[in-house]
Each structure stands twice: as structure tokens, then as C-alpha cells.
């Protein structure tokens, strides 16, 4: 019996109270408040798969249209809408959210944590994702469906050409990005800090490694798209000129921003799938060869994927020299992918694994992805790409990469983990049928497209003349598409069958090595009442004896066995070594994530329906919900303060800096804001580069003095917050309060004067692109300041209300306010330099 299994079997007097604390509210209203990773993860899976089925139906309609030359089954307008919605839904509402759902369920199980780091953020992410999907599809109700492709190139998507469907597309996408960023931040912090004691980085499951890289990529890539879509929406609703070439804007700016997201997006979809493959291969082969090489390949892929965006823009007339840096990166990423492929093949070599459905899908993945990778190398070569750009060769290539590289592993992953999810086995015979139908159908559909593309069939065109000689290929592809759909249908039937009639699953039916297989199937709400200790990369294969008995953290595990009973806690470990560093409090169920997401819905509805009054109402609701969400329970704080766990474990409960989840969360907020500012600065200089004059339109150079004084106020506020923090550490409550109050006053003064100053500018955001980027960068500083103001005000209010334990309860809040203040000051300095000094040539 492994350490984990024995732990599960141990009795404990506090079991009932502990379970009660971790129980989730039930019923419909309770379900709205749940923060349980399993429930929310499953919601992600079901919702995103439903979207997948709808988008798949769109694809079938398109294939029927293309089955014959000069067909009129669908008109061009409907066809344009269908391919837009197909791509959009698959990329934004299925591929990433589905994998996020899997990760939300699996990561705490695999890592030995009791939940994800920010359970309420998990819930918030789901609600926003659900609403974003509904917003996308609600366009059908108003005959306002976008028809600009999943990439929405300007000027096609700009106000001059796009129909009102673009609002649903842009706003829905914006909400989906918020959900993705929230999930990415949450997963990254969870992987880095919420692991079982002893689970050092080199013992972490490869699935977690893949998700660590992916989560960080999501934060940066999605933020870029969030800014891009925001600029596009401003062009539509506010009349800004970012993409209006007539007024100093630049339509290519959209492509840069979009593909800076778009290419990493492919790897954001692909990398988690490789994690699934590594876990399945490991279980079926009984080993994984080249663990460190796979980790290095994941890291290489994560970084290199951000260096490929221009390879989608070879035909846009960029300077030739710049193209080759990206061609080089595009070629090199094949090495990283190849390393993983070879490691999996080596793991399976001479192992005689059972060819069950999960492994079949993995083998199908290897075959298809290698083909997609090879064509990827081909299109990375500039001269070849110039020939096949916007032809069906590209359609074939990216479907080989995305369906082969992600959908096959996802299906394999569902078959693999389904027994753990529901305690029942899928039907093996039906599983094999689903694999062969999917595999053959996929290749029949997409392989001919390589040929069609080389013969000159363009993408995104609703029909083709018979004289092109590609009708036979198209008919074959259409038949293949229906076979593929039959494969997906068999998969769905099998999952539904397993849920109701499947044979009872053993605890570890595939012989996996990772911690989730030591949990009951399905696991309880209270994951790991007794935390497992890890001393091996393969705990279920190599920890046959209860190693926790002589483990250096035995006393920690004992102390936390079914404890604490009154509040939710898990261990926070060192990022590299996995040594316990603190006891972290996890959030209780709450309606606030739902309320905050409803606020976002109001903002989106207000934007789409041009009911602009709804926007501030939505913002107010979201902000109020966020305050309520983050306001700690006084009772919980008291329970934490009086807990004996610090004495028993030697670990603190009230922590600051990187030893606290709150600070780690703020790090990601700062990363998102910083990256947003960076994206806008790039836009500023890009627009300036292609302008004959700057400021545009003969506008005068900006005044430097008043803005210098204003922006200096942010620096002074940061200094005041820093002083507040140092006074706090010296136990001077009054001085600390004075520092916070001074910082708040300075920030508030900045906002007031800044608003007045902006209102007196002799240009507006609508004047030209210079005015647009000037105002948006200025508003971004205001937003950064507003967030700082909110943090400081909340800290101040708590300090005012706290009694004698203020120093224990507030340390983190004051520190975070100070650190955020430094960040705000940095942003202010950079934006000031850009807006007010750089036009002078400084």
C-alpha cells in the first residue's frame, strides 16, 4: 500500500468536521456559489464540448457546400458567417477552455493540493467563459453574426466594412480572454506553489510541466489579444482611428497584435495535449524516457512560440530581413516538438503496451501531428509560404496540427481519466470504433486538402469552378468529414454509456504513476485530508512503502491530517524543492464570482446594444463584487490566528511576499497590466513609425511641465505607500495609516487633474491615430492608478476596522499596496516618457 493509500485509510476524529468544511453547497442556488475545482472543471468540459459540437456542425454544412463545384447549398454570406463562427468557436470556446477544464480538475489531484490556489477565480473564470460563449452565439438571434474570419483582419473588420456582427465577435472574445487570463494565472500559481511536500520540480508530472508553460503563455498571449480587441472595439464604438489608414492608423497593426497572440495560441492548445500524451504513454509503457528532455522541449516551445508571429505575415510586405528571424524560429520549434515525439516513441519501444482506446488516440496523434509538423516546417520557409499562402494547403496544415495535436490527445485523455471522473470504465469496443472512425475520417477529410491547395483552391471562398479540377478531392473530403463526425458521435455515445452503464472502475485501471490514481473514483470534495509526501517522480510505482514515516515533513503531514477543521487550508511549498513553506488559506464558496461576471455581462451588453449607461453599472457591480470577494471573513481570521498549526508544523499561516498566495496573484495582475501597457507602447511606436509627422495632423507638441508634475504625483504616492510599509514593519500603525492616506490623496489628485488636463487637449481620440493612442495610453495609466487606489482604500478601511491584531492581519495588504505602488510609478514614468518626451526626439 502506498503512502497515499494508507493515508486515505487512516481514521481520524476530526474527519466529519473537516469534510463539512470542504463540502460544497448543493442544489441550483448552491451550484452558483460552488468553488470546487472538480465541479467547475466538469462545467468547463461540458460547456466547451457543447460549443465544439455546434462548431463541428457548421463545418459539416461547409463541407456539403464544397462537395460540388458551383454549388448553391449555402450562399456566400451564410458561408462567410459559418467559417467565421467555426474557427472562432473552435479556437476560443473549445480548444483552450476544454483543456483548462481538464487542468482545473486534474492538477490538484496530480499535485497533491487540496484545491487550486484561487478557487473563486476558478468559478469566475467559468462564469465569464460561459457568458462569452452565449454572447458569441446570441448574434444568431439578431441576425448579427460576424463574417470576418476567426482572425478578423482589418480593414475588413473595421467600421467602414464590418456589419454589426463584429460587435458580438469582439465583445464576446474580450470576455473569453478575461476568462482565459484568470484561468492561466490561477493554474500557474497552483502549479508553482500548491504541491505535495517533496514534489520538487524534477518530480512534477509532465502534465503539470506542460500546463505551467501554457498558463504563463496564456497570460501574455491573451493579454495582447485583449488589447487588440479593445482597440478594435474602440474604433467601432468610440470612433478612434487605430486601424483607419485614412486618419493615421495602420491596418497591419491589427495583424501584428493578433498574431502575437495567434501563434502562441496554437502552442497553448498543443502543449497541454502533449502533457496528456506524456501521462498516457507513461502509464501504458510503464516508463517515460527522457523526462528532462521533455521538460526542456516544453520550455523551448513556450518561449519560441512567441517568436513566430510574423510567419503568418510573410506576404504583407514587411522588410525581408525581419522575415528571416521568424523563419529561423519557426524552423527551430520543430526541434522542440521532435524531441517530445522521440521521447514518447522511445518510451513505448519494445514495451508491448495494451492497445486500449487512450493509447490508440495517442498513436493517432503521433502520426497526424508529425505530418502537420512537416508541413509546418514547409510553410516556415518564406518562398514556399508565398506560394501556398491562403490556399487549402494551409487549411490542411493547421487542421493536422490542431486536430492531430490537440483533439486526438483530448479524446485519449477523456478515455484515460474518465474512470477517475465517474468511477466507471468506457466501452473498449466502442472506444476502438470511435478511434478508427475519427482517424480515418480525419485523414480522408484533410489529406486531400494539401493537394487542393497546391492546385490553387483558395481559403474562405464559398465555391469553386468545375474547371479547377478539384471536385473529386472535395467530394472525398466531404465524405471523410461525415466519417469524422461519426467518430465523434461514437465518442460521445461511449462517454454517456460509461457514465450510466460502464463497468465499475478500479482505483488505478491503467496503472498510472501519478497521485490522482490514489484517490477514490470519483474523489471526494475534501481532496487529500492527509497530504501525501513525495519522494519519487513516480509515486505510485516507486513509493510502495509509506515513505512519509521517515520523511522530513512527517510532522507537517501529521499536523494537517484532517485539519484544520474550521477553515480550508493547504500547504504552500517552495517552487523548486517542494519543501513546505507556509500554510495557505483557500477561499470558501461564494456568489461573488457569479456577481462579478454578471457585471461583465452588463458591460458587454451595453457595448453591443450601444446602451452605454449599462457599462458603468456593470463596472460598479463587478468592482463591488470584487471588494466583497476579497474582504476576508473576520471569523476565519480569528480561527487562523488562534490555530495551533504554526506551533505544530513550524510553518506560518500569515505570510507576506512570495510566500503568500495573494502576493503571487498580484504578480500576475501586474504582469497582465504591464504587458497591456507594453502592447500599447508597441502600438504607439508602430503608428509613429508609419506616420509622416508626429504628432499627426499638424497638432502641436505636447506640453511637458504640467504632466511631469502630475505623473510625479504617482511616484510620490508610491513613496508614501513604501513608507507606510516600512512603518508597518516597525509597528507604527499611525505612521502607516498616514502613509496610506497620503498615497491615496496623491493618486486621487492625479486622477482629478489628469481628467481635467485631458479634457483641455485640443484634440480628441477621434481626431487621428495619434489622438487615439494618446488618450488610450493616458486612460491606461488612470486604470492602473484606480486599481492602486482601490487596493490602498481597502487596506486603509481594514486597518481602520481591525483591532489589536492589525499587524498580523494586514501585513500582506500593506505590502501589496506598496509593491503595486512601485509598479504604478514605473508605468507612469514609461508612459510619461513616451507621450510627453519622445515626440521631442528625447
Amino acid at each position, binding site marked *: 500500500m502506498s503512502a497515499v493509500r494508507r493515508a486515505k485509510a487512516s481514521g481520524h476524529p476530526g474527519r466529519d468536521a473537516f469534510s463539512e468544511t470542504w463540502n460544497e453547497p448543493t442544489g441550483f442556488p448552491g451550484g452558483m456559489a460552488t468553488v470546487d475545482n472538480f465541479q467547475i472543471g466538469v462545467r468547463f468540459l461540458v460547456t466547451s464540448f457543447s460549443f465544439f459540437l455546434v462548431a463541428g456542425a457548421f463545418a459539416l454544412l461547409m463541407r456539403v457546400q464544397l462537395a460540388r463545384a458551383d454549388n448553391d447549398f449555402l450562399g456566400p454570406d451564410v458561408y462567410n458567417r459559418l467559417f467565421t463562427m467555426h474557427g472562432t468557436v473552435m479556437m476560443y470556446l473549445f480548444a483552450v477552455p476544454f483543456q483548462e477544464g481538464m487542468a482545473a480538475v486534474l492538477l490538484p489531484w496530480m499535485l497533491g493540493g487540496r484545491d487550486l490556489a484561487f478557487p473563486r477565480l476558478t468559478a469566475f473564470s467559468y462564469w465569464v467563459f460561459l457568458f462569452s460563449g452565449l454572447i458569441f452565439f446570441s448574434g444568431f438571434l439578431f441576425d448579427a453574426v460576424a463574417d470576418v474570419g476567426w482572425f478578423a483582419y482589418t480593414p475588413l473588420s473595421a467600421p467602414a466594412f464590418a456589419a454589426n456582427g463584429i460587435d458580438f465577435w469582439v465583445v464576446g472574445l474580450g470576455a473569453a480572454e478575461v476568462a482565459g487570463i484568470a484561468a492561466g494565472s490561477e493554474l500557474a500559481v497552483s502549479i508553482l506553489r500548491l504541491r505535495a511536500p517533496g514534489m520538487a520540480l524534477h518530480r512534477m508530472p509532465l502534465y503539470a510541466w506542460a500546463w505551467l508553460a501554457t498558463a504563463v503563455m496564456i497570460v501574455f498571449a491573451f493579454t495582447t489579444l485583449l488589447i487588440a480587441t479593445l482597440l478594435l472595439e474602440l474604433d467601432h464604438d468610440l470612433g478612434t482611428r487605430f486601424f483607419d489608414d485614412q486618419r493615421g492608423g495602420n491596418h497591419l497593426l491589427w495583424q501584428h497584435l493578433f498574431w502575437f497572440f495567434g501563434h502562441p495560441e496554437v502552442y497553448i492548445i498543443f502543449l497541454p495535449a502533449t502533457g496528456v500524451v506524456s501521462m498516457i504513454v507513461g502509464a501504458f509503457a510503464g516508463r517515460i524516457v527522457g523526462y528532462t528532455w521533455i521538460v526542456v522541449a516544453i*520550455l523551448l516551445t513556450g*518561449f519560441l512560440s512567441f517568436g513566430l508571429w510574423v510567419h503568418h505575415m510573410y506576404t504583407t510586405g514587411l522588410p525581408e530581413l525581419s522575415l528571416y*528571424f521568424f523563419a*529561423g524560429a519557426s524552423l527551430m520549434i520543430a526541434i522542440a516538438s521532435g524531441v517530445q515525439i522521440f521521447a514518447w516513441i522511445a518510451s513505448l519501444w519494445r514495451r508491448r503496451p495494451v492497445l486500449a482506446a487512450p493509447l490508440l488516440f495517442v498513436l493517432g496523434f503521433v502520426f497526424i501531428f508529425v505530418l502537420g509538423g512537416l508541413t509546418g516546417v514547409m510553410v516556415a520557409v518564406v518562398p514556399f509560404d508565398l506560394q501556398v499562402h491562403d490556399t487549402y494547403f494551409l487549411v490542411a496544415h493547421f487542421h493536422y496540427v490542431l486536430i492531430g495535436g490537440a483533439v486526438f490527445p483530448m479524446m485519449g485523455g477523456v478515455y484515460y481519466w474518465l474512470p477517475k471522473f465517474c468511477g466507471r470504465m468506457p466501452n473498449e469496443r466502442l472506444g476502438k470504433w470511435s478511434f478508427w472512425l475519427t482517424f480515418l475520417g480525419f485523414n480522408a477529410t484533410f489529406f486531400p486538402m494539401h493537394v487542393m491547395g497546391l492546385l490553387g483552391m483558395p481559403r474562405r471562398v464559398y465555391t469553386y469552378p468545375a474547371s479547377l479540377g478539384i471536385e473529386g478531392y472535395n467530394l472525398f473530403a466531404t465524405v471523410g468529414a461525415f466519417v469524422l463526425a461519426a467518430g465523434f458521435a461514437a465518442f460521445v455515445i461511449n462517454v454517456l454509456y460509461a457514465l450510466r452503464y460502464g463497468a465499475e472502475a478500479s482505483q488505478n485501471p491503467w496503472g498510472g504513476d501519478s497521485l490522482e490514481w490514489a484517490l477514490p473514483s470519483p474523489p471526494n470534495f475534501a481532496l487529500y485530508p492527509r497530504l501525501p509526501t513525495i519522494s519519487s517522480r513516480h509515486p505510485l510505482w516507486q513509493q510502495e512503502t509509506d515513505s512519509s514515516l521517515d520523511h522530513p515533513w512527517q510532522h507537517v503531514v501529521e499536523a494537517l491530517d484532517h485539519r484544520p477543521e474550521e477553515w480550508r487550508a493547504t500547504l504552500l511549498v517552495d517552487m523548486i524543492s517542494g519543501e513546505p513553506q507556509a500554510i495557505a488559506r483557500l477561499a470558501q464558496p461564494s456568489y461573488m464570482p457569479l456577481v462579478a461576471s454578471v457585471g461583465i455581462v452588463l458591460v458587454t451588453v451595453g457595448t453591443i446594444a450601444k446602451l452605454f449607461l449599462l457599462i458603468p453599472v456593470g463596472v460598479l457591480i463587478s468592482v463591488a463584487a470584487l471588494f466583497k470577494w476579497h474582504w476576508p471573513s473576520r471569523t476565519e481570521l480569528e480561527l487562523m490566528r488562534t490555530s495551533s498549526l504554526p506551533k505544530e508544523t513550524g510553518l506560518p499561516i500569515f505570510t507576506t511576499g512570495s510566500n503568500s498566495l495573494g502576493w503571487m496573484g498580484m504578480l500576475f495582475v501586474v504582469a497582465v497590466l504591464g504587458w497591456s501597457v507594453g502592447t500599447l507602447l508597441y502600438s504607439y511606436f508602430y503608428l509613429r513609425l508609419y506616420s509622416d509627422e508626429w504628432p499627426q495632423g499638424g497638432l502641436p507638441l505636447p506640453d511637458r511641465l504640467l504632466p511631469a508634475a502630475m505623473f510625479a504625483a504617482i511616484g510620490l504616492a508610491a513613496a508614501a505607500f513604501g513608507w507606510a510599509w516600512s512603518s508597518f514593519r516597525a509597528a507604527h500603525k499611525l505612521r502607516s495609516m498616514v502613509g496610506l492616506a497620503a498615497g491615496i490623496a496623491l493618486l486621487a489628485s492625479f486622477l482629478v487633474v489628469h481628467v481635467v488636463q485631458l479634457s483641455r487637449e485640443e484634440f480628441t481620440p477621434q481626431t487621428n491615430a495619434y489622438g487615439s493612442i494618446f488618450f488610450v495610453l493616458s486612460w491606461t495609466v488612470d486604470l492602473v492608478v484606480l486599481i492602486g487606489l482601490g487596493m490602498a482604500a481597502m487596506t486603509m478601511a481594514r486597518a481602520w476596522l481591525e483591532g489589536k491584531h492589525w499587524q498580523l492581519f494586514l501585513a500582506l495588504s500593506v505590502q501589496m499596496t506598496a509593491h503595486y505602488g512601485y509598479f504604478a510609478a514605473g508605468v507612469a514614468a514609461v508612459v510619461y516618457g513616451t507621450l510627453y518626451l519622445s515626440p521631442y526626439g528625447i
Partner: protein
Amino acid sequence: MTNVARDQQVGRTALWFGLLGGAMAWTLHLMLAYIVAEFGCVGRLANYDYLGITLVAWLELALTVATTLGAGTATAVAYRSHRRLRSPEVVENVELAAERSTAWAGLLTSGTFTFVIVFESIPILYYLRTC
């Protein structure tokens, strides 16, 4: 690492630099190389030349040398950490397994990125006089 002799320890900074230094250098190289190419070729930089080589190409070459040195240093630091953690005195020490693994991953990662920087920069040699 409390039970490990001080001279056998490898600092956290060295480990992180070894692991991520090469990647950071590559990121810097690609971003700056792109900015110099796009902004330099569209702007005025391409009009200046020294020794028959445009200012854009000089900047690209200088950037390549600097970032290759940066990535190479990260590789060397990772190699040094790895060698120290594989020395006979500590190779059996399980307390250092995480550090050892990180150093090895850093050696592979930073080494590869050093190669990628050089590989990506080969085309500069074909654009010494033009963009």
C-alpha cells in the same frame, strides 16, 4: 539544503539564470532584431552605412553578439552548477536532486537558445547592404 556543505551548494540565482537566461537572451534578441529591422528599414537607419555595411546590419550583428554572449554565459553558469552538483561528494545527495535537475535542464535550455540565436542570425550576413 540545510544539511549540505556551503561549498557544495549552488545559489538560487545561478540556477534560475542558468535555466532561463538563454531564453531571456533569445527573447531579447528576437524582439530587438525585429524592431531594428522593421523600424530601421522603414525609417532612416538603412540609409547610413559604415565600411559598406548598413547601420541596420551593424546593429543586428552587435545585437547578435551581445545576446549570444548572454545566452552563452547562462549556459556556462548552468554547466558550472551542473558540474558542481554532479561532483562525487554530492552526487548521491538526494536533497540536491531538484537543484541538479534544474541545472541540467538549464544546460540544455540555454545551450539550445544560444544555438537558436546564432542560427536565426545567419540571414543578416545576406542583408549587409540592403534590407
